[in-house]
């Protein structure tokens, strides 16, 4: 398997080249092109041996993460094949190697992963989930292989040593082992709210974080009021 990432300009995308029989998984609907010998299936997010109800429960959790209920799976049939994946927003696509490190991905940042990666949903807890813009459930990617994430704008890697504060809405993924809490940006509640930063995520421990330069919910917040109201 070989992943070619087009990172020139504002519209990142990835073309995954598959050997015969190789598999890749993506967020449902992320495929925009594929060679015709690639079989495309829709799979629900469930662990092996979980059974039908386990699958449904896992699907519900994924739904709460603000993510599509389903994943798409791609398998090259006879001969090598390719599948192209792209996110909705302008911004970069980045490959993250999973192996010695396990990564945890925020709700909308997961784009795809190779077959050797096990995906598991991680419930963030009600307080954290309610107050963060990243959703109630994160996606944990463990095992061995490549994970693809997408960001709104540029993606940068931040090394955490003594703790880092990330603005709410900018988190893409972080390495397993890091702990975070939702807190106020400034010294007091009033100055935090006045600064316009509101709530932030405070990370502790040793590891790495991927952040996106822009917060998609601010674009949504700017565009939404300009559109005619929708039926409730």
């Amino acid at each position, binding site marked *: 398997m070989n992943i070619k990432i087009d990172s020139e300009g504002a*519209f990142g*995308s990835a073309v995954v080249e598959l050997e015969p029989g190789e598999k890749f998984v993506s967020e449902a609907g992320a495929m925009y092109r594929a060679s015709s010998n690639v079989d495309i299936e*829709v799979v629900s997010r469930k662990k092996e041996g979980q059974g039908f109800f386990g699958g449904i429960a896992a699907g519900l959790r994924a739904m709460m993460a603000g993510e599509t209920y389903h994943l798409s799976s791609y398998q090259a049939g006879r001969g090598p094949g390719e599948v192209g994946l*792209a996110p909705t927003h302008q911004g970069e696509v980045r490959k993250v190697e999973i192996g010695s490190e396990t990564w945890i991905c925020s709700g909308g940042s997961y784009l795809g992963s190779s077959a050797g990666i096990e995906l598991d949903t991680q419930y963030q807890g009600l307080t954290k989930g309610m107050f963060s813009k990243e959703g109630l459930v994160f996606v944990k990617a463990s095992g061995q292989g490549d994970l693809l994430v997408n960001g709104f704008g540029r993606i940068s890697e931040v090394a955490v040593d003594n703790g880092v504060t990330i603005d709410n809405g900018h988190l893409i993924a972080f390495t397993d082992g890091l702990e975070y809490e939702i807190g106020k940006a400034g010294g007091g509640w009033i100055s935090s709210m006045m600064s316009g930063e509101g709530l932030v995520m405070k990370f502790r421990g040793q590891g790495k974080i991927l952040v996106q330069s822009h917060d998609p919910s601010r674009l949504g917040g700017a565009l939404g009021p300009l559109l*005619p*109201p929708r039926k409730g």
Partner: protein
Amino acid sequence: MKYDIISAPSYSLVEMSLNEGESVIVEPGSMTWMDTTVKPKTEMKGGLFAGLKRRMGGESFFLNTYTAEGGSGTIGIAPGYSGDIIVKELNNETLYMERGAYLCHVGNIETSATWEGFRGFFAEGMLGLRVSGTGLLFFGSYGDVQEVDVQGSYTVDNGYAVAWESSLDYSIGRSGRKIRSFLFGDQLICNYHGNGKLWVQTRSPRNLAAWVHPFRPVQRDNK
């Protein structure tokens, strides 16, 4: 005529220098700036029927011709979307194109709406654009545009095909074959057949609109 595509691939714009007497035909609304020596002329190219056919293909009824008069001049041309622009030299050839992909051309090229080569594009509007002749064609779309050399067959998600050579044919299918995929609203895909070039875009305006939708204010019933 000389041209340069600047700010590619994200915010591409065609910067074209015309010698005296040379013309470029531009989709209305796409002229960004021009020298005073460049004179616009709006016409219904090919007459009323051709204009109507173009209109049905998602392009404008009128086309604007910009000609350098009384000296050379430069014109800037950009589409409504932020994205890539592709230049294709046509030599008595035909391309099929999605609605809205056409930007401008130089030479003897005709654009008209067609059902030909467009089947079952429910999500895209029924008609596409047929572009044929000899000259230099500029087209583009939202996002990056990637060229795919189709040998045999290739799959594209519905709404991501920008243009393709007339040697290619396509059919609409569903991605999954199991009943499950029907139940869970699986995506419609286009299967292209034959040998020829195909251009795909990497972003979809429809997906962006669907994403913005929940941010719209909610209408209250004042009963």
